[in-house]
């Protein structure tokens, strides 16, 4: 039996490299979405007023409530996007399915998100590398994500590292 070099890179990943996905669009952001996000990420303390107190927020340079920069308007889609990240379907040498984990990210922020905003996102697979790690053979995948609001203004670019082992 010939020994093949172990790789978790799939043909689907090779085909997707560098290609921007079609944009997907989140439902309009509401004040409640922002308030709940801020409450969850500040729990058990009270979150800053800029995220929930319209009267106070109007007195800031933003003129109204803004979302925390890390707010994700794409949570809870009614129709789940098909497919997900290419390549997670593989299996390990022991036959168990691959586990995916978040390796880290760098987000650069443009204009803030506000109640009423409709955010669109597109994604592309940038590159990857594989090495032997603490969890065995491990694949690190770099993805770029770009968010824009309904006026085409840049909200965020994210470079993220996905780990598969």
């Amino acid at each position, binding site marked *: 039996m010939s020994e093949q070099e172990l790789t978790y890179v799939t043909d689907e990943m090779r085909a997707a490299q560098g290609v921007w996905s079609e944009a997907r669009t989140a439902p309009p952001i509401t004040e409640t979405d922002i308030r709940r996000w801020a409450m*969850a*990420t500040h729990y058990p303390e009270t979150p800053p007023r800029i995220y929930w107190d319209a009267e106070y927020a109007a007195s*800031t*340079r933003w003129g109204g409530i803004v979302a925390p920069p890390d707010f*994700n308007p794409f949570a809870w889609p009614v129709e789940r996007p098909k497919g997900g990240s290419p390549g997670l379907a593989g299996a390990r040498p022991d036959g168990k399915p691959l586990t995916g*984990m978040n390796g880290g990210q760098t*987000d650069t922020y443009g204009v803030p998100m506000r109640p009423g905003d409709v955010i669109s996102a597109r994604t592309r697979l940038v590159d990857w590398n594989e090495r032997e790690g603490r969890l065995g053979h491990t694949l690190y995948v770099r993805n770029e994500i770009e968010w824009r609001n309904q006026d085409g203004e840049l909200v965020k670019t994210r470079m993220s590292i996905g780990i598969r082992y």
Partner: protein
Amino acid sequence: MTVSFEDIQIGDKLPAWSRKTSFAEWNRYAAVNEEFVPFHMDDEAGRRAGNEAGAFGMGNLRYAYIVNALREWIGDDAVVREVGCQYRAINQKDDVLTVTGEVTAKKAEDGENRVYLDINVVTQTGAPTCPGHAVVAL
């Protein structure tokens, strides 16, 4: 408390921002981010994913804590321009996580007064979990 660009010095420390984390925090974050990943919810699934202690916390929540610490430091009128980090260690149940940071540079750039920081999230034993960087505009 809000800082001013003029007063900030290289080497200044970010005021510590801490949270004890367990299912109460993780479940709330799962609910808003729709992040119901079994290894964040269930000890057996955590062990299957390679963490002997069981379920473990979300990297994204630590990221939120970094953003929160920056916001508290710079005030509501300033801008968090960039945050990056790598999730190098696991957030175990009942860890007390503290966001730490140190100013590495300040410069006028693209019409903004920007402050650069090295950032981390450390546990109650001081173990770093999440080295990274941040840029704020004051």
